[in-house]
């Protein structure tokens, strides 16, 4: 049989024995599609709740979907899964998406996924060259930062090899360590860098010259051309950061075309980059086959080169206050790149710094306690001291390397209370920094019912929901508001046809009750349910969450998007026809499987809650989340999912309906399954 889309092989690497095996992908696909679905299935089979994140028995799964390595837009993405050390206070299954160019290279090298298990007796790295696999000694790479490691590896294997590597933080089993590829594509949330370090695996190096066979090349090209037209207009002349076609609006946040978040960060660095004689510059930088190009590559004589995302823009905003005349300065940039070099998750640092600041101001932590120059938060010295200690687990850094939430819980008392400001989900499955708990960001944004529900039920942060925010921000841009200060009431008229198309009713666009005092919770469950299905699907195909699912189109009159693109791409690449409706059933199955894994790890309805602050603090318009409303929305959500409303655990009936009988049996044996 000729295989379309999938490479057909999964590589299993047993580091304890130093052996590798090849297993067929066909055991799991097309049912679980690939990417996040495939990883969830593998983790369900192989990572029971007894296994700790840093145990050799834990699996680290790097999975691509059928679209990787093909022309399909944003097919540079792939997923990393396993038991995540960052989930706090309980370790639990989690996933992390990565962009860039590593995923396609894996497909061209002949594998759909890599499963890493065991623990190597000495540091090694994995070298995959067109299907041939070797475990090579990494003693001399151990201790190097992420850039140095890659540069050494390029010297050995040529610069066309693509590398996923950990930095010193990962080697020291930090719970917020990343695995980095090239200059900034990283598996961040979940802390999988620490898992890789616990296995004594420094890097995974790929070189592939094979191909991925597409079933219907012509059809694929038609869909791709259609998608390209939605997201880009060519800028043949002049400034590459400005589109040529007048009136064309970008419908994703940040704007696309390499402007990313840094384009909105005025200050020293932007001035330098705009001055041709300075030696600093930025160029567009796209992940594989991406028409959106949300980021830029920043370079200069005395800064670390690399791609700029929102993490680079926002990680060290304290520096723009500390030295406000410079604004976004070289220090701000270098801080974020330092985190990349050490292999520390910038998103968690983004919560740790303001939390330390709060604690210092309120005399909960002092400079003597921590050994950190807390009086100088915002300075270059502070961030270097902080990141160095975190990476090498020195002194107070040893505590912070456990992640902000775990560190605060260990200190306890007032410090723990201050932490609740920056981490949204309470219960035993938190650990992820606040991200879009409010429209426009906590605590000044606007409360929106479905953001709260999404936060409550997701197994990570809702960072991978760019598309959900894109429809809001896209609408805000269209009516001339700034995305960060958008008023939900003003977005309602423009979003009515959009929400009717995407979620079935114009009422889903009414965010606020008629009297303007409360939130409208009527559609929260239905919106989140459909959103979960779409999210699972796009992570399984695997495409990027910034353009997909495409819900808001800034350039048409009614602004209605097109949510059938992903299933069309899947059909064209694999030759297996899948309609949009069918795909939602698949998404429903995958979301139930992920929930089953979480429930097996101990999660119940009681863990799907937010911290107290979210119920008491008022938002920018004086409204707040009501605990009773959220609980009601949860009831409705569990019912829609076919999960038991009292416990939030999938029922046997539901599991059998979506063809997951083995999952139901296992849950029953463990006494977890709802009666």
């Amino acid at each position, binding site marked *: 049989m000729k295989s379309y889309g999938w490479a057909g092989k999964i590589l299993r690497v047993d580091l304890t024995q130093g052996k590798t095996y090849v297993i067929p992908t066909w055991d799991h696909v097309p049912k679980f599609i690939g990417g996040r679905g495939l990883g969830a299935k593998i983790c369900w089979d192989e990572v029971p709740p007894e296994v700790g994140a840093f145990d050799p028995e834990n699996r680290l799964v790097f999975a691509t979907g059928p679209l990787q390595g093909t*022309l399909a837009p944003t097919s540079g993405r792939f997923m990393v899964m396993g038991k995540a050390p960052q989930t706090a206070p309980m370790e639990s299954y989690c996933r992390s998406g990565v962009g860039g160019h590593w995923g396609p290279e894996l497909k061209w090298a002949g594998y759909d996924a890599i499963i890493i298990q065991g623990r190597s007796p000495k540091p090694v790295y994995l070298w995959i060259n067109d299907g041939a696999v070797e475990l090579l000694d990494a003693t001399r790479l151990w201790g190097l930062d992420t850039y140095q490691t*890659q540069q050494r590896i390029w010297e050995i294997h040529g610069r066309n090899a693509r590398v996923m590597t950990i930095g010193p933080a990962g080697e020291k089993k930090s719970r917020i360590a990343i695995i980095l590829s090239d200059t900034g594509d990283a598996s961040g949330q979940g802390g999988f860098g620490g898992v890789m370090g616990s296995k004594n695996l420094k890097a995974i190096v790929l070189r*592939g010259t094979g191909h991925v066979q597409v079933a219907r*090349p012509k059809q694929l*090209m038609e869909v791709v051309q259609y998608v390209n037209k939605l997201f880009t207009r*060519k800028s043949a002349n002049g400034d590459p950061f400005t589109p040529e076609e007048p009136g064309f609006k970008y419908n994703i946040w940040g704007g696309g075309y390499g402007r990313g978040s840094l384009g909105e960060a005025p200050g020293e660095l932007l001035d330098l980059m705009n001055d041709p004689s300075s030696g600093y510059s930025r160029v567009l930088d*796209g992940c594989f086959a991406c028409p959106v190009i949300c980021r830029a590559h920043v370079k200069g004589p005395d800064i670390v080169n690399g791609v700029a995302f929102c993490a680079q823009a926002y990680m060290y905003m304290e520096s723009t206050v500390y030295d406000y005349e410079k604004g976004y300065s070289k220090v701000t940039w270098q801080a974020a790149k330092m985190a990349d070099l050490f292999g520390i998750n910038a998103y968690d640092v983004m919560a740790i710094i303001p939390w330390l600041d709060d604690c210092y101001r309120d005399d909960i932590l002092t400079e003597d306690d921590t050994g950190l120059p807390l009086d100088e938060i915002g300075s270059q010295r502070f961030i270097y001291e902080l990141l160095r200690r975190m990476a090498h687990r020195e002194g107070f850094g040893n505590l912070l390397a456990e992640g902000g939430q775990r560190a605060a819980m260990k200190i306890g008392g007032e410090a723990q209370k201050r932490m609740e400001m920056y981490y949204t989900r309470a219960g035993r499955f938190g650990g992820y920094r606040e991200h879009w708990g409010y429209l426009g960001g906590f605590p000044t944004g606007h409360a929106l019912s479905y953001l709260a529900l999404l936060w409550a039920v997701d197994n990570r942060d809702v960072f991978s929901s760019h598309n959900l925010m894109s429809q809001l921000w896209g609408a805000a841009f269209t009516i001339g508001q700034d995305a960060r200060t958008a008023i939900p009431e003003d977005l309602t008229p423009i979003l009515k046809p959009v929400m009717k198309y995407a979620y079935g009713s114009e009422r889903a666009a009414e965010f606020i009750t008629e009297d303007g005092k409360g939130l409208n919770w009527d559609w929260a469950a239905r919106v989140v349910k459909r959103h979960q299905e779409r999210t699972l699907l796009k992570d399984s195909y695997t495409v990027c969450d910034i353009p997909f699912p495409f819900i808001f189109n800034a350039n048409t009159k009614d602004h209605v998007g097109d949510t059938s693109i992903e299933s069309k791409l899947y059909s064209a690449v694999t030759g297996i026809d899948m309609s949009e409706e069918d795909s939602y059933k698949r998404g429903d199955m995958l979301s139930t499987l992920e929930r089953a894994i979480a429930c097996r790890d101990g999660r119940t309805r009681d863990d799907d809650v937010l911290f107290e602050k979210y119920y008491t603090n008022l938002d920018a318009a004086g409204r707040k989340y009501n605990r009773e409303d959220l609980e009601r929305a949860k009831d409705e959500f569990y019912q829609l999912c076919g999960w038991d409303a009292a416990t939030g655990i999938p029922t046997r009936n539901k599991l059998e309906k979506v063809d997951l009988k083995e999952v139901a049996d296992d849950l029953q044996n463990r006494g977890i399954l709802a009666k």
Partner: protein
Amino acid sequence: MAPRKTTNDGQNPSEKDRTNHLLSDPITRRTFLRNGTTGFLSFLSAVAIADLLDFITFPDGTEIVLAKAAVLADKSVCSGCRTCEAVCSNFNSEGRNAAALARVILDKEYVRGDYQPRVCFQCLDPVCLRACPVTALQVDKQSGTYARVIDERVCIGCQKCLKACDQVFVLPRPRFDADENITIKCHLCFGDPQCVKYCPTGALRLERSEKGLRIGYPIVEGV
């Protein structure tokens, strides 16, 4: 696969099979040269009738007509997304998507942020064409681009064109397709290059001139 045997005049010995194959197939990519130039002789006649076109004369007396079109790249707007590579291989290799099968190469230096699309210039003096021992490399008269193309029915996969190109450019533009045992090369997609069409930033463009383009080797070298 073993290289196909060739006779002295560079024609495939199974002439009869080939003709049958051509008659039975509708026009596909592999047979588009059927009515066009199928050898060195007919390519010379192309020069003779197109008297408006410029051509260059080599010291040995042979003449090669200039290409009327070529893909050019503006590196300053290139995002290094490699859509060009993906669409090229998808379009020209029957849906086999791979960077290794792309007739345009995206040469990326990730840390320096240096993204250079390496395009085929359809050279003034095509070293690839002159290196071909079986005249598989020809000038595409039919599509009107006068691009230097490889007739895949004739190609024996010796990679001499690839090595010749490597002598003058940083990366050889012809690629070797090991599955089919042929060398592949940019042929401007019959006058409508897909890389240009699909490039999200407009970094690639199709340069045209009715008089013929004086670019590539020997004017441009080492790019």
